[in-house]
């Protein structure tokens, strides 16, 4: 496991550590294991060395480069980086270099973080295992025969393998939290609108949210504080500021009301994962929290609503990949034939499946039965969460129904793969924050993640509970 990000930043800012040495240590770790893990689509060695040297020069000149000075960070390869390949792990964007930086990338630069590489993902963030990448799968650093989860599997694996102290991913239906759980690291989906989506290649715009991966809860909090904030370039960015998170991490959970979501501990959840979740609740009770059973009845319909809403939005968002302005073009005699050839060769099977599912759900005659109904179910889920949060400060649930599964296990049947997201999807539909914290292991010895869910903008409370779980987790 890599050094803690906050320790690196403290050392670099005080001049005790060299950002360049920290970077070279991480590059050496990458050299040692990247061949077998494949966390990265690209490792930005030269660019990162220039950035690290610049940090060291600024410290020597008496400047403070920022709260993440010299911390190596990996970026999911669907975040735009100016002049640097941004592929979304798709043939259709292979070789594309964006003409601008995502807002989060600008925040990272201002914080002194050093971007070490762009990580592998399921193509356009559609998947739960990182096996849908056009550039080959990522493997779980804890067990190379297992998937790292997805779609941000490369980012989760990079942190778990010590390739980077921090990483950013995107979470549309669990794509940060589920791989974090499967790789044994911390993963956070912030409140919708808290982090700007400007420069995140869109999958499902009403659900997508960028968030941190880290080895510790404290590091994840520090990264979220750097990337959060209103952005006029994202019309869904919320004007509210997030309250400070880091100062309250050690405030404990005494008196906090914690609800264990009944509907997310039933059928389909592996017994070992359910047991760790109940043990996490017991541990919080032992630390003074008031723990009880919570009910979010409509949560069981989340999967159905999500797999109509997300593909519908995706079918619209991915219409822009047509071979005209950027990315792949397959030549053909007419524009329409060129677009068809480009999209047919450029997109992988899962992306095509979701585009067609979404096109169908939106098409004349089916709109009301599918997309319209799914949006009404989404309202029910929002209402049920609101009801639960009248009684509880936070909710507790598993992150993933199982520990990491073997590569190839679920690729034949899309529905089996989609069922991985059953515990994470409800928070995307409601827009509320949720995070996964490692809590013990399954019967196979692989990491289990427990999920802390909170109402909108209650990140400070959510992180307090996560920090408590981190300190209470079985070793």
């Amino acid at each position, binding site marked *: 496991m890599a050094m803690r990000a906050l320790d690196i930043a403290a050392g670099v800012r005080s001049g005790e550590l060299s950002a360049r040495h920290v970077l070279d240590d991480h590059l050496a770790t990458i050299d040692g294991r990247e061949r077998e893990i494949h966390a990265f689509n690209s490792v930005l060695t030269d660019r990162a060395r220039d950035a690290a040297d610049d940090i060291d020069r600024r410290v020597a000149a008496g400047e403070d480069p920022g709260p993440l000075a010299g911390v190596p960070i990996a970026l999911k390869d669907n975040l735009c980086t100016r002049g640097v390949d941004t592929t979304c792990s798709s043939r259709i964007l292979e070789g594309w*270099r964006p*003409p*601008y930086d995502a807002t989060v990338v600008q925040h990272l630069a201002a914080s002194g973080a050093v971007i070490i590489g762009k990580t592998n993902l399921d193509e356009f963030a559609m998947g739960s295992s990182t096996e849908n990448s056009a550039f080959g799968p990522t493997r779980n650093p804890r067990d190379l025969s297992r998937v790292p989860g997805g779609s941000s599997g490369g980012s989760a694996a990079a942190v778990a393998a010590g390739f980077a102290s921090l990483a950013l991913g995107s979470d549309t239906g669990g794509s940060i939290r589920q791989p974090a759980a499967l790789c044994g690291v911390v993963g956070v989906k912030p409140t*919708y*609108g808290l982090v700007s989506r400007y420069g995140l290649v869109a999958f499902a715009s*009403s659900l997508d949210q960028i968030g941190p991966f880290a080895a510790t809860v404290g590091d994840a909090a520090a990264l979220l504080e750097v990337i959060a904030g209103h952005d*006029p370039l994202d*019309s*869904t960015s919320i004007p509210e500021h997030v309250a400070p998170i880091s100062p309250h991490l050690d405030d404990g959970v005494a008196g906090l009301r914690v609800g264990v979501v009944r509907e997310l501990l039933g059928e389909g959840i592996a017994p070992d994962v359910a047991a760790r979740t109940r043990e996490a609740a017991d541990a919080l009770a032992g630390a003074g929290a008031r723990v009880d059973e919570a009910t979010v009845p409509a949560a069981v*319909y989340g999967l*159905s609503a999500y*797999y*109509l809403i997300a593909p519908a939005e995706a*079918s619209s968002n991915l219409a822009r990949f047509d071979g*005209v*302005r*950027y*990315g*792949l*073009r397959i030549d*053909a*005699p*007419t*524009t*329409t*034939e*060129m*677009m*068809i050839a480009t*999209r*047919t060769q450029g*997109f992988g099977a899962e992306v*095509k*499946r979701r*585009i*067609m*599912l979404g*096109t*169908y759900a939106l*098409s004349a*005659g089916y709109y009301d*039965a*599918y997309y319209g*109904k*799914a*949006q*009404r*179910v*989404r*309202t*029910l889920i*929002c209402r049920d969460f609101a009801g639960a949060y009248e009684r509880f400060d936070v909710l507790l649930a598993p992150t993933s129904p199982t520990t990491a599964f073997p590569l190839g296990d679920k690729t034949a*049947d899309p*529905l089996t793969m*989609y069922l991985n997201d059953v515990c994470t999807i409800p928070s995307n*539909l*409601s*827009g*509320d924050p949720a995070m996964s914290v490692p809590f013990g292991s399954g019967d196979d010895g692989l990491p289990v993640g427990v999920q802390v869910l909170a109402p*909108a903008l209650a990140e400070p409370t959510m992180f307090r509970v996560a920090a408590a779980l981190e300190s209470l987790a079985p070793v």
Partner: protein
Amino acid sequence: MAERITRDAVAHVARLARLELTDDDLDMFTDQLAKVLGHAADVESLDVADVPPTSHPYPLRNVLRPDVIGPTLDRAEVLAAAPEVEDNRFKVPPILGDAP
């Protein structure tokens, strides 16, 4: 809820989405989409007729910016990413005379 999705319907949405499918693709996608839509039928029992739809987690407000020119993308940099360019414009094959 609607009836099982047909092979013809899948071929139709593929055309709408500008995707070309082989016969094998069509069989596979028809089967897979039917399975996913079949699972989604579990909401059939819910009476949501009086429930308003949610398109977005928070109420969207219209956002206006001051009518001032800010930084814009560099034209040469944008065009450099295009597959084909002529006279500072994106170039495409003929658009007339086709109707696949």
